C-alpha cells in the first residue's frame, strides 16, 4: 500500500470504530456521564447482570435465531437443490424474483406486510393479539431464506453435475448420492448461509418490532425500549459484551476456516 492509501484506510477505520471504542471506554466509567470519564468501575456491568429482563431477552434472541436459522437453512437448501433442476426459464425467473423480494424490499415493508397479514388472520379467528413467538419466527425464517438460498445456489452451480451421476453410477440411490457426494460439496455454502441467517436474526430490529407479540422480547427490541428513555452506561456495558462476543465468534470461525484450508 502507498502512504496515501494507508492514511486513508486509517481514517476510514477510525470513523468506523470510534463510536465502538468510545462505548467501550465509557462502559467502565464510574459516573453516569457519557462524555466525561471520572474513574474506572465495573458497576454498570454488575447492574446489567441484575437486569433480569435484559438477560431474558438475550435468551429469547438466541432461541429465536437458532430456530430461524435451522429451519431456513434446511428449507432453503432443499429449495436451492430443487431450483437447479428447473428447466423452464420462466418458472426459474419467477422464483428468483420472489426470492429476491425480502432482500430488496425495505425491512419496514417486510415487517408491516407480515404484521398486517397476521393481524388480519388473527381477527378472522377472533383473537385480539395474534402476534407471538410464532409470528416472529415465521417472519425471521422468511427474511433469512433468501440469504441461505443465495449462498447455496452458487455452490451447486460450481459443482460438476456428473458428480451425482457418478455416485449413482457406482451404486447409490439418488438420495444417498445427495448425502454422500453433493452435500459435502455444497456444505461450505450451507454453513455460510446458516451463519448469515443466525446473525441476521440476532441483529434484526425492524421486522421483529412489527411482528413481535407483547410477551416475547428480543434483545434489539429491549435495546430500543432502553434508548427511548435516558440511557445509562449500562447499555454501553451491554454493547461491549456483545462486541466481544462477536469478536470471539469471528475469531473462532476464522480459525476454523484456516484449519479447513490446511487440511
Amino acid at each position: 500500500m502507498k502512504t496515501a492509501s494507508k492514511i486513508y484506510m486509517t481514517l476510514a477505520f477510525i470513523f468506523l470504530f470510534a463510536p465502538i471504542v468510545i462505548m467501550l471506554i465509557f462502559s467502565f466509567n464510574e459516573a453516569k456521564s457519557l462524555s466525561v470519564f471520572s474513574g474506572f468501575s465495573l458497576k454498570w456491568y454488575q447492574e446489567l447482570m441484575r437486569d433480569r429482563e435484559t438477560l431474558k431477552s438475550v435468551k429469547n434472541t438466541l432461541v429465536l435465531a437458532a430456530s430461524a436459522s435451522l429451519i431456513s437453512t434446511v428449507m432453503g437448501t432443499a429449495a436451492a437443490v430443487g431450483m437447479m433442476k428447473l428447466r423452464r426459464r420462466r418458472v426459474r425467473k419467477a422464483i428468483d424474483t420472489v426470492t429476491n423480494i425480502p432482500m430488496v424490499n425495505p425491512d419496514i415493508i417486510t415487517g408491516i406486510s407480515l404484521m398486517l397479514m397476521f393481524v388480519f388472520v388473527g381477527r378472522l379467528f377472533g383473537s385480539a393479539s395474534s402476534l407471538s413467538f410464532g409470528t416472529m419466527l415465521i417472519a425471521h425464517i422468511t427474511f433469512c431464506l433468501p440469504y441461505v438460498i443465495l449462498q447455496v445456489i452458487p455452490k451447486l452451480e460450481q459443482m460438476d453435475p456428473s458428480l451425482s451421476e457418478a455416485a449413482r453410477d457406482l451404486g447409490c440411490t439418488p438420495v444417498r448420492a445427495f448425502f454422500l457426494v453433493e452435500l459435502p460439496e455444497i456444505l461450505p455454502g450451507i454453513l455460510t448461509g446458516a451463519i448469515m441467517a443466525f446473525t441476521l436474526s440476532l441483529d434484526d430490529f425492524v421486522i421483529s418490532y412489527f411482528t413481535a407479540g407483547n410477551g416475547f422480547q428480543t434483545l434489539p427490541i429491549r435495546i430500543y425500549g432502553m434508548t427511548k428513555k435516558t440511557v445509562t452506561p449500562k447499555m454501553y456495558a451491554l454493547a461491549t459484551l456483545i462486541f466481544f462476543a462477536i469478536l470471539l465468534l469471528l475469531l473462532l470461525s476464522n480459525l476454523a476456516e484456516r484449519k479447513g484450508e490446511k487440511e
Partner: protein
Amino acid sequence: MRTKATRLQKLLLYPYGLWAILFIVVPLAFIAYYAFTDNSFAFTTENITRFFTATSSVTAEDGSVSEVHTYLLIFARSLKLAVVSTVICLLLGYPVAYIISRCNARLQSSLITIIMIPMWMNFLIRTYAWMTILQDTGILNSALTALGLSPLHIIGTESAVVIGMVYDYLPYMILPIYSVMAKLDVKLIEAARDLGCNGFSTLRRVIWPLSLPGVLSGVTMVLIPSVSTFYISQKLGSGKFFLIGDAIEGQYVANNLHFAAAIAFVMMIALLTAMALLRALADRKVSGRS
C-alpha cells in the same frame, strides 16, 4: 432430462414455494388491501388521497408560519437525506474497496473482516453511540473545547441524520464494490497500463466501468435502508426531522394500520420505480460489454 432422480429433486422446491407464496407474496397483497380499505374493510382511496393532500402548518426559524403538504414534504426529505447519504457512502467507500482489493489475499480477508465488525453491532446501539458523541455536551464538543475550538451544534440537524446513515450503511457500500473488484483480473489493469493509461485513466476507463455492477448493488443496499429508516432520524434528528419510516411507525403505534399501509404502499411503488430506472441506467452504461 426427466429421470426419476430429477423429479425427486424438484419435489424439494415445494415447501419453500408454498412458504414464499404465503409469507412473501400474500403479505405484500395485504399492504395493497389495507391501503385501499377503511377500518371496516370497505374499499376507499381516502388513505392514498390523504398521503398526497394532508397539510399542516410549519413554523420556520424566523417565526413565519406556512402551510405544507405533510407527507409529501416528509417523503421529499427522506429521499433527499437518503440520496445525500448514498452519495457520501459511495465517495467514501469506493476508495476503501479499491485499496483493499489491491492488497494481498491474506490482508484482504483481514481488512474485510475488520470492515464487517461494526456491521455486527446492533444498529440501534451504533446509532445511539453517535448520539452521545454528537451531543452539544458530547465527546466531540468536549474535545473541540479542550483544543480551544468553538463547539459545533450538530445533534438535531440534518447533518447528524446523514452522519448516522453514512456510518450505519457504509459497509453495505464497501462490500459489494469490493467483491466485484477483487474478481477483476489484474491483467486488465496491466493491459490498460501497457496501452498507455496512467493510474487515473486506468481507474476511469477500466476499473470504474467494470466495477459498476458492484456500485449498483452498493447503491441499492444503502439507498433502500436509508430511505426507509425510522430510528436514526428520531435519535440523531432529535425528532425534528420526521422521515417516511417514522411516519409509518407513527401510524402503526397509533394503530392506524390502513394509513400506515397506504404510506408503505406509496413508498414501495416509488422505490420499485427508482430501482427500475437505476437498473436501466446502469444497463445502458454497461451494455458496451455484452
